[in-house]
């Protein structure tokens, strides 16, 4: 590389060069990197609120019986905990933050295809989140339906369901527009020479995710509007007393909300697929298999929704069809895990914080995935449906999977985002607390779930006390780990980060840290024989 290329005259994207300065410069910026960071800050706030609500639940559950507040408040707390964590944290999650920050750079673009639409998506996200949060303080009290808004209760309850549902509807719009933006960006703005099968695997996972966002989200949007129509206009869609069918609601809700799990987990898998070859300094094993498995997960994952409904009175035919499909979707997921492990095999492994979190992801995702199969099997599902076992399973996927991948991604791209390194020792301690705290919090839920502890219950039998108390202490460790991570990343400036601190091969590691406003001085190209993970 010549001196002319390494010296960068353009100021970084963190420097205000436009009409506005300070906060206004950020709030009006259409730069994909700034929008990614704004999503990240917003999500960290929502995540902290969600964790706080989770801990308030755990405190109440420390002993059987009522301790600090009553069952109605407990119902309200688990509902808003779910709404915040699902709709404002994990669904937009990695795609909104790291998809925005990294994807355009990784494919060699200056920005996303529609930068203003991207900023509009962010504002829709903020508006939707604000409406959902405001539902707690308006009308006849916080909604108490759970984040799933199951009918007919969501039609009949006097609590403030409409505002919460409308908030989720607006958040859905944000998700659709982001998905659309990413699809067009990846089709139209890849660097010359970068064919689809030379595109890095994180963008590949975002591509599969974006299709689910565009195709599945409108269904839940309409379904949520149907709840509002039924409550206000008394149209009988779902309430049997009005001539409706409550199982139809469950179908429509899960047609979106199960693919939504893949909206969450696919970008997480994409991040792990970037981190493992980088820290193994080895070409990713089975590039095409990983890319195609992302599409396969998105496609098959679209048709497994009714495995949430085995006990809802569905036909036996539908039950076995959806059980079969659920087992099928495990195949592409397992392909990814085998490829990650095979990539590490005989690699030159460097155990830095992002890699530690990636390993944590694989471990926790495997437990979450395998317990998902036991839930997908018809016979076992009948026994553990709506128990703490389900709570443990989805937290292993959503928090152990998406959450740990999110933490891994922050530690991975932080030097690129801010141009600074962080303290590895502190980062490793945050992993120790988060990993041990997570397992102590959620593993006992598997045990008490099998023993018969129902989910969403304010009170419980004495034999479940020890499990709940272990979970409380796990929650405390988890909060400590989260605080250590925040201190590590944001308390003081670390040493200046080099352009490529981890020895990565994708485009973002070929530009300065932090990147200039339009990412590249000279637009990158991909040579005919060049591959995205060529570590030779």
């Amino acid at each position: 590389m010549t001196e002319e290329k390494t010296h960068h005259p353009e100021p970084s994207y963190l420097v205000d060069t436009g009409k506005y300065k300070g906060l206004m410069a950020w709030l009006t910026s259409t730069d994909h990197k700034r929008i990614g960071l704004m999503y990240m800050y917003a999500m960290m706030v929502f995540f902290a609120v969600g964790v706080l609500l989770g801990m308030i639940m755990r405190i109440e559950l420390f002993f059987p019986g009522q301790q600090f507040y009553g069952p109605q408040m407990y119902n309200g707390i688990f509902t808003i905990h779910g709404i915040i964590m699902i709709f404002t944290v994990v669904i937009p999650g990695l795609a909104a933050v790291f998809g925005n920050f990294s994807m355009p750079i990784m494919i060699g673009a200056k920005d996303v295809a529609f930068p203003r639409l991207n900023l509009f998506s962010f504002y829709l996200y903020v508006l939707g989140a604000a409406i959902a949060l405001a539902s707690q303080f308006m009308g006849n009290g916080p909604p108490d339906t759970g984040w799933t808004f199951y009918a007919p209760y969501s039609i009949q309850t006097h609590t403030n369901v409409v505002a919460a549902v409308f908030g989720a509807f607006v958040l859905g719009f944000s998700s659709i527009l982001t998905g659309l933006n990413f699809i067009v960006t990846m089709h139209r703005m890849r660097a010359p020479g970068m064919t689809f099968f030379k595109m890095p695997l994180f963008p590949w996972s975002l591509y599969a995710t974006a299709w689910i966002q565009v195709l599945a989200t409108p269904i839940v949007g309409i379904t949520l509007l149907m709840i509002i129509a039924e409550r206000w206009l008394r149209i009988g869609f779902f309430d049997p007393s009005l001539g409706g069918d409550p199982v139809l609601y469950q179908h429509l809700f899960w047609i979106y909300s199960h693919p939504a799990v893949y909206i969450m987990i696919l970008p997480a898998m994409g991040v792990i697929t970037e981190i493992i070859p980088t820290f193994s300094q080895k070409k990713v094993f089975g590039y095409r298999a990983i890319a195609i498995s992302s599409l396969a997960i998105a496609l098959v994952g679209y048709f497994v929704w009714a495995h949430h409904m085995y006990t809802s009175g569905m036909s036996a035919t539908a039950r076995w069809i959806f059980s079969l499909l659920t087992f099928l979707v495990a195949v592409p997921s397992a392909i990814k895990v085998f490829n990650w492990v095979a990539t590490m095999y005989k690699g030159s492994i460097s155990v830095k914080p992002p890699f530690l979190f990636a390993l944590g992801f694989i471990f926790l995702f495997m437990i979450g995935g395998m317990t998902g199969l036991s839930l997908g099997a018809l016979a076992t599902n009948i026994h553990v449906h709506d128990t703490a076992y389900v709570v443990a399973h989805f937290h292993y996927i959503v928090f152990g999977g998406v959450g740990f991948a999110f933490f891994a991604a922050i530690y991975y791209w932080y030097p690129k985002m801010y141009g600074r390194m962080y303290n590895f020792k502190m980062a490793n301690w945050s992993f120790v607390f988060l990993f041990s705290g997570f397992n102590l919090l959620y593993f006992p839920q598997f045990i008490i779930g099998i023993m018969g502890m129902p989910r969403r219950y304010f009170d419980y039998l004495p034999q479940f006390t020890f499990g709940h108390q272990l979970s409380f202490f796990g929650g405390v460790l988890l909060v400590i780990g989260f605080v250590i991570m925040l201190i590590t990343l944001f308390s003081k400036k670390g040493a200046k980060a080099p352009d490529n601190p981890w020895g990565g091969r994708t485009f973002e590691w070929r530009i300065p840290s932090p990147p200039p406003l339009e990412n590249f001085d000279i637009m990158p190209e991909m040579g005919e024989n060049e591959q995205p993970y060529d570590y030779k």
Partner: protein
Amino acid sequence: MHTETVHITPYRAHAWVLIALLALTFVTITVTWIDLSALTVAIALLIASVKAYIVLTNFMHLKFESSLFRVFVGMVLAIYVLVILFTLSDYLFR
């Protein structure tokens, strides 16, 4: 380098589309007065599908676009059909 052709549809074509959509809306309302029992919903969906086809091909310019866009629309329709079929696997076998 990808080149794009701009298609300017004449006003007359838009007017015909508008007339067709209004006429089909009138048909949709009219058939609700006839007792077709189980076929009522099927006919309403059929008319709505024809209207959607007209909008997709004319207003959304699908008839001028490359085959990639047609594949995308076809994929969406295929997924929609599969969703309906899987949902019916519950309702038809209860």
